[in-house]
């Protein structure tokens, strides 16, 4: 099953990043994706196993100078019950409420959810709606270097991202939403917990006097990666929300979504869900 030659549990970020620069490292955080993937033989351990859970710098949630920062080790439970998030970005709490079980939420980290890069990764959808970016740290020429990339450009294919093997995702950051911001999330399934999403939709923007602005729309599980729905955003941007605009957004949503037929749902059904969720969420925005 494994040929791990070395186990490392660094306590400092710089140390963790240095370890990565040596190559051949498997990173583990909560292990809720990694352990099943190893057990099923879908993945093999590299020579070095690095547990990042001891790195304090990667924990916590903060609001500083108008920017919210979620350390990669924040668990879904911590995000759900965090005061800053509940006040400024409750769409993340709504998503956490649809995420797995208590036991999984207690272990599942935000960094793991993003880096696993499943098209059905739930926390990614509200983060796309919030316009989040990720921070990637690596060791270069004797010091740590951090780059920021929009989450929107992070995903390449199922399980594939622009993160280099020598980079650690340290945090996800986004501007504190304006007071007019309304964010809505919907996941398929009668009881969404413990269900791999068939379709997820997130919609957010500033809603004032019937007008919807700075609109972001994201879809999960309807393409090879979680995606921003450009046509839907365009159909909504700056518009006064009414039935016609909402119907136009639904048509645009069908353009944006590229669902597949698989064991969990047909293309037809996924398109159907995308349409009704888009409509439902926009109606919720109007009622806000």
């Amino acid at each position, binding site marked *: 099953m494994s040929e*791990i030659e070395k*186990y490392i549990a660094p306590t400092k970020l710089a140390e963790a990043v240095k370890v990565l620069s040596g190559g051949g490292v498997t990173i583990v955080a909560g292990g809720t994706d990694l352990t*099943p993937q190893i057990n099923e033989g879908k993945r093999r351990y590299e020579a070095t196993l690095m547990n990042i859970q001891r790195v304090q710098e990667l924990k916590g949630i903060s609001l500083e100078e108008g920017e919210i920062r979620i350390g990669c080790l924040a668990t879904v439970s911590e995000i759900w019950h965090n005061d800053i998030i509940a006040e400024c970005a409750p769409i993340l709490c709504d998503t956490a409420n649809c995420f797995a079980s208590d036991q999984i939420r207690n272990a599942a980290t935000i960094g793991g959810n993003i880096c696993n890069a499943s098209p059905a990764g739930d926390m990614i959808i509200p983060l796309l709606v919030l316009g989040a970016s990720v921070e990637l740290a690596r060791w270069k020429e004797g010091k740590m270097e951090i780059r920021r990339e929009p989450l929107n450009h992070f995903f390449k294919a199922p399980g594939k991202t622009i993160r280099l093997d020598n980079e650690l995702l340290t945090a996800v950051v986004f501007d504190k939403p304006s007071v007019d911001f309304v964010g809505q999330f919907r996941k398929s399934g009668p009881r969404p917990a413990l269900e791999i999403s068939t379709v997820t939709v997130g919609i957010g923007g500033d809603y004032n006097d019937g007008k919807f602005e700075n609109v972001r729309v994201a879809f999960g599980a309807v393409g090879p990666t979680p995606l921003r729905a450009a046509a839907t955003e365009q159909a909504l941007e700056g518009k006064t929300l009414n039935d016609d605009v909402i119907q136009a957004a639904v048509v645009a949503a069908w353009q944006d979504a590229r669902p597949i037929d698989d064991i969990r749902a047909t293309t037809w059904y996924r398109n159907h869900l995308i349409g009704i969720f888009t409509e439902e969420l926009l109606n919720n925005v109007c009622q806000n």
Partner: protein
Amino acid sequence: MSVKTELEFILNGRPVNIEVPVHMTVLALLRESLDLKGTKYACGEGECGACTIEVDGTTINSCLMMAVDLQGREVMTIEGLGKGNALHPMQQAFVDHGAVQCGFCMPGMIIQANNLVKKNPDLSREEMKRGLEGNVCRCTGYTKVLDAVASVVGLKI
């Protein structure tokens, strides 16, 4: 074979010092190395909750967690819930309400239920249902499980 590493943690109030293979799960450590068979292995993939334990006061599925990650932490399994042979009030409530049939899910179910009540002594029935979503039981149909937990809420535990 993969390398081993030294591991120190507190298990049901007592310090444990043991060498573990670094790829081992907490569940394998408990059942195979420490011979604590209360915590159950069923799905092995986080779906059923039979392997639920408490680590530093929060519940996790021990089948997914790596043993090495227990370093310096405090663990409670079903064996640590009661005092000696005396049942814990949550265990007694399950017995009194006929909430146990084959029993296989029960160590995980009871650890989870107890944790929910510890965190929120005013737990509603709806909150119990939500909190126990990750614990599958093939026998009871859950009604008596919820009755048992409900009977404990309000009691000091």
